[in-house]
């Protein structure tokens, strides 16, 4: 039911702002800009999931559209971006972490990067909290905080659009929430959609992990009686949401799998907050 309604609504909406849609989206690459003698204001740090994972790529695209629509002077590092090293460090392999981190810092320091925005809480945490010890000092924002700022400043107008009055619940990412105490920014983006933000019992500081962190994403679970993403998805769908909003590519994968496992994919969409904004505005 949820899906059809969203489609119907967004179809009519779609029609009104069709002109905006014809915009030609661009992705400036840092090395090209430098060759042209230009400097971007911010680097959009895409991350490995955002670059390679099919589901996360859609989030990357949504966020790129927002940046384009707002005429933000941004660039990506493109092929010069390497994994931040988060999974290696958390799995315990400090050598691999150091190699990746130092390589990234060298790249960014050469370009004189000052400000970074990323759609991945893991990249955000590592660059913000762990790169300074290695000589990488930047202003780092997660896209939830960045979007919240744009909305508050009136630069980004969010049309309620397809999500007006929808039941949206938010799943806190550990690396945004407990790790960096960002709880309100993603929520304020959802609220800007005129949606019905429904909190589940285990949210904010008590939010349950999706099961992907600490390198778990890349290996089988240890023996147990349940998968963590199943447990978390059950908690989330208990409030009958139309949409489960996430702000992390790994949570996105884990919860999407969980929803499929419950056979609820037709009723519950799992969407990143960047996708919510882009879809609401029919970008």
């Amino acid at each position, binding site marked *: 039911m949820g899906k059809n309604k969203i489609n119907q609504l967004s179809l009519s909406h779609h029609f009104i702002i069709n002109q905006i849609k014809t915009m030609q989206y661009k992705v400036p690459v840092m090395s090209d800009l430098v060759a042209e003698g230009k400097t971007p204001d911010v680097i959009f740090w895409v991350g490995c999931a955002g670059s390679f994972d099919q589901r996360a790529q859609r989030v990357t695209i949504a966020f790129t559209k927002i940046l384009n629509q707002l005429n933000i002077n941004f660039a990506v590092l493109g092929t010069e971006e390497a994994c931040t090293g988060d999974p290696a460090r958390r799995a315990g392999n400090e050598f*691999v972490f150091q190699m990746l981190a130092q390589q990234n810092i060298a790249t960014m320091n050469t370009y004189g990067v000052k400000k970074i925005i990323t759609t991945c809480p893991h990249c955000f945490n590592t660059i913000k909290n762990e790169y300074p010890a290695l000589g990488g000092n930047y202003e780092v924002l997660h896209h939830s905080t960045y979007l919240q700022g744009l909305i508050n400043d009136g630069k980004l107008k969010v049309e309620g659009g397809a999500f007006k009055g929808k039941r949206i619940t938010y799943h806190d990412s*550990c690396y945004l929430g407990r790790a960096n105490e960002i709880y309100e920014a993603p929520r304020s983006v959802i609220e800007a959609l005129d949606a019905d933000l429904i909190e589940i019992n285990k949210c904010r500081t008590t939010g349950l992990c999706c099961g992907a*962190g600490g390198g778990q994403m890349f290996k089988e679970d240890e023996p147990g*009686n349940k998968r*963590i993403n199943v447990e978390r998805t059950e908690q989330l769908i208990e409030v009958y949401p139309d949409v489960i909003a996430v702000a992390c590519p790994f949570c996105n994968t884990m919860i999407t799998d969980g929803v499929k496992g419950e056979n609820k994919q037709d009723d519950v969409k799992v969407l990143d907050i960047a996708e919510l904004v882009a879809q609401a505005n029919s970008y």
Partner: protein
Amino acid sequence: MSFLTIVQIILFIGLVGASFFVAFRKFKEIYDNIMLGKPEHINTTLGFRIKNMLLIALGQKKMFKLTFAALLHMVIYVSFVITQIELIEIFIDGLVGSHRILYHAFENIPFLHTLYVVVINFIEVLSLLTFFVTILFILRRTTFKVERFQKPELKGWPWRDALTILAFELILISFIFLMNGADSALHIKEHGEGYGFILSGFFGSMLTGLPNLSLELLEKLGWWGHLCMVMTFLVYLPYSKHLHIMLAFPNTFFSRPEAKGEIHNMPAIQHEVQSMLDPSFVVPATDGEIKFGAKDVYDLSWKSLLDAYTCTECGRCTAACPANQTGKKLSPRKIMMDTRDRMEDISKGKKEHGPDFADNKSLLGDYITGEELRACTTCNACVEECPVNISPLSIIIELRRNLIMEASDSPTEWNNIFANLENNQAPWQFSPSDRLNWTEELN
């Protein structure tokens, strides 16, 4: 001074002196154990430290995530602290052989007299409340089966420890009422009225039928019983999870300031890699031999060791742990208990076999297994929940580092991502040149 009084003074000094001596020795051993940990600089201001200590240890701010448990715990805690005031008088009486020296000293000073009576009444009311709360706590562990108290790591000694202290509490409070009740009865018989203690005065009024000698004996029994319980508690404390009533203060004082998501850097490996990437870089001589995380307790930071001795075994961490909730072997509380047990086992070994004692055991492997460590998602739920600011995650990460880099004990999938990260700079097998492929779908 009668012969009996002198005997009592000697007994008192002997008992208190011996208790303090034994307790001090054990506290010193714990301090030495903690100091054997690796240095860690905790970069915080005095203001930050005091604020954390006042809010979290004294104010028990984080306890209040579970309001009901926090309120019950607060009753016991406040009563414990307040009862110590009565101990001042007991100590003076014990040392000089007097009887209720403060009461008599204040008797003719109206303000102080009233204060004395009010304080004792306060202690008695709290003690009675504590008595009921203690019974509730015993029921919570034995009858209501609260889930976090049913985990395997609480079997055996930790279980007995928890119940022992609760039993201590009941006995201690009974002695207080016995002492004050019998004393009130004597006072009533002598002066026609009690001291003004409402609760024990009421008990006392029921005891006035007993002969004076019995009442005096009962009063003495209560007094000595109270003192003996306090001294037993002091000696027992450093072996028990109840050590947290003391260590919660330094542990919160030394709270780490970093964002919870930050994992500590390893400068030696940083420099090693730096010299690989830039041959002109000279590795600082101070780095010494590279240590690959922690294999045993003394490879951990002193703060992690202090954490371990501070753990209250409350299991809030374990209840919040996603791995534990889904039936994995990992329990962050067990990580803390194992760390403490390991330190205690080493101390015991040293005492029995001399300072060079070494068994062929280590924290990693013999106490904590790779399976437990690998289950952690680094979600920080345990750190968030802990009422005394312990980080089980710090220990998990240090042990994992050893497991992966030293023992090369890594699941195949992880070895694959390490190889991918080294070769393609991404955890998956995609070529770095494909990093911008997503842009093809943009328009």
